[in-house]
């Protein structure tokens, strides 16, 4: 095994492997430290990642992390408005079109909303209800599916057609019996025809909880244009809300900034609108779970540290055994350097095996944990890198001392060691 050629190292690895097998209990104990450390890093990262992704998914389903809202806002706090301020028309369909044109690739959908409280009468019911004037991709953006009938066509929206789409609960309230699509409805003084009924939306955090989306099923929707033109006397046809869907969260901050300046420019530099604070939201989303990552990284480091100490302890406990061995090897021709390389090779092998096993254990562990709390498992690939790097560093550091000690033994003393 003299020298440092490839053959010598191959022999060294083969020899280290044989010695590990010959001293299996010791090798297993030493590897255990690495396994636990790596498993705790991988498991911790993966569990916290799974949690975070689940939280994001819920957020998307519940409120929409990917939605950027534009709302009208009062320009003046008090006093009488200036001519410039009154010259503005407020939030309108033109704004949603400008936004879409700003970056067609980025925008996954735009919806408009105009709210109205009104008398809603069907042949069987007469209620005071909220009516929602909708435009753009409102139904798709809010996750509605049409169960029967159809959704609004572009033509409906442009011509302010007297049509309505209603949610499942609203349908049950207004038309307890019979076919619904095609039946008349009177909203205020405007007669409309129901053209579609939406599928019931259900969302519960846990089974048995009440349906958090019940309110969505109460929707009575008509084209926003119908509300602005025929139900409200607003000559400017202003909207209550424009929502952009930006699937790429990372691009959202930039998009919101350029949208802000675009709208400001087209609103004569008056801030009569308000955008969601996207930067804050994205930052919060990104930092969510960072605390856990640090905690798990720390616990992994601690586990590896503990494992390393255990290793040193085991090395020291088996010192008598090992010193005699080292003495014998030196007597038959192993140099101090060779002993050192032998120890380090063994440590390297144990670290590599421990890391691989630890990765498996960590994945299995996080699978069990995430399954028990009902969260889909998301394996954090970065954690593999972290765990392997840490295990390598600790494995190397903690192997160094015993290896150095052994290599410095004098053969005579080592042979006589009792």
């Amino acid at each position, binding site marked *: *095994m*003299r*020298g440092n050629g490839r053959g*010598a190292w191959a*022999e060294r690895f*083969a*020899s280290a492997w*044989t*010695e590990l097998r*010959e*001293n299996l209990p010791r090798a297993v104990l030493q590897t255990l430290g690495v396994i636990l450390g790596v498993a705790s890093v991988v498991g911790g990262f993966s569990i916290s990642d799974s949690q975070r992704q689940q939280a994001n998914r819920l957020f998307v389903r519940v409120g929409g992390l990917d939605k950027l809202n534009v709302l009208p806002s009062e320009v003046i706090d008090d006093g009488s408005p200036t001519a410039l301020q009154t010259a503005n028309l407020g939030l309108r369909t033109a704004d949603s079109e400008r936004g879409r044109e700003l970056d067609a690739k980025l925008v996954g959908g735009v919806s408009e909303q105009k709210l109205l409280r009104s008398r809603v009468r069907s042949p069987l019911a007469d209620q005071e209800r909220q009516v929602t004037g909708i435009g753009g991709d409102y139904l798709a953006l809010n996750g509605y599916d049409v169960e029967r009938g159809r959704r609004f066509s572009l033509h409906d929206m442009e011509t302010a057609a007297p049509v309505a789409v209603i949610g499942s609960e609203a349908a049950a309230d207004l038309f307890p019996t019979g076919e619904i699509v095609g039946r008349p409805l009177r909203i205020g003084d405007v007669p409309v025809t129901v053209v579609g009924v939406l599928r019931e939306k259900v969302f519960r955090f846990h089974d048995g909880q009440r349906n958090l989306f019940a309110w969505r099923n109460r929707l009575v929707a008509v084209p926003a244009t119908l509300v602005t033109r025929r139900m409200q006397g607003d000559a400017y046809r202003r909207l209550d809300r424009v929502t952009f869907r930006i699937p790429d969260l990372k691009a959202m901050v930039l998009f919101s900034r350029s949208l802000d300046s675009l709208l400001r420019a087209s609103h004569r530099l008056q801030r009569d609108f308000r955008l969601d604070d996207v930067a804050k939201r994205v930052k919060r989303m990104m930092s969510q779970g960072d605390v856990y990552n640090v905690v798990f990284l720390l616990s992994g480091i601690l586990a590896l540290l503990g494992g390393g100490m255990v290793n040193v302890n085991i090395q020291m406990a088996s010192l008598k055994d090992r010193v*005699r*061995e080292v*003495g*014998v*090897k*030196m*007597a*038959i*021709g*192993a*140099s*101090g*350097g*060779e002993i050192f390389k032998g120890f380090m090779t063994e440590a390297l092998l144990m670290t590599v095996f421990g890391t691989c096993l630890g990765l498996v254990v960590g994945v299995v562990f996080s699978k069990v944990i995430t399954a028990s709390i009902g969260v889909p498992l998301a394996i954090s690939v970065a954690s593999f890198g972290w765990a392997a790097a840490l295990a390598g560093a600790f494995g190397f550091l903690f192997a160094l001392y015993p290896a150095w000690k052994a290599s410095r033994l*004098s*053969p*005579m003393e080592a*042979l006589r060691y009792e």
Partner: protein
Amino acid sequence: MPPIIETHQLTKVFGSNGNAVHALRGIDLTVGEGEFVALVGPSGSGKSTLMAILGCLDSPSGGSYALAGRWVHDLSGGELARVRNEKIGFIFQSYNLLPRASVRRNVELPMLYAGLGRRERRRRADELLEQVGITDKADALPAQLSGGQRQRVAVARALANRPALLLADEPTGALDSHTGQEVLALFRELHALGNTVLLVTHDPTVAALAERQVEIHDGLVRAAGGGEGGQGAEAAAGTEGRAGAEAAAGAEAAA
């Protein structure tokens, strides 16, 4: 042909000035090639220290030592390891086999350090085990072997790299007399094949088997006598030894 062992005024001091122990106080010893020499002396005589230095396990405090024509008294640790590997085969009283390694691997180990290939190691190990008569135990662990068998494995291991010198330290000390005789017979056999053997023992009956006895007392060579039936060889070695000593002195003068 230079002698295998040639020492000149070899000294070894343990400890420092105040409580220094002079284990060796000037050993002149010459062992020629093919000799079978017994190093005898009571415990504390310095023979173990001498053996350690002759075996390149330790360095002398003073004097010179040439092993098979090469000065080794001032070599570094790594170089000494190489000399041990190539030139010396050790046989210990307590066998000193690796307890969890198979018999074959124990025998292969010196060849591994020498850089021999796997196939070559295995071939030679099997050959050696056959030579010492324990072919069937190649895959056993040392603990599964009797004392005599273990010592045979140790002998096989010592022979692995065809050393210039076999150095046996009380090889029969842990064996019953019958097994001890068998092992000693093996040494005589190896000697007959041309190996140079240096046997360290406190037992006069064991020492009597050697061609020549060197008695160590208080760190000095006290007497050298012939063993049974080796007079001619001893005489030859003696002349060679003297020639070697002169050569050594010359080399020192040159240096």
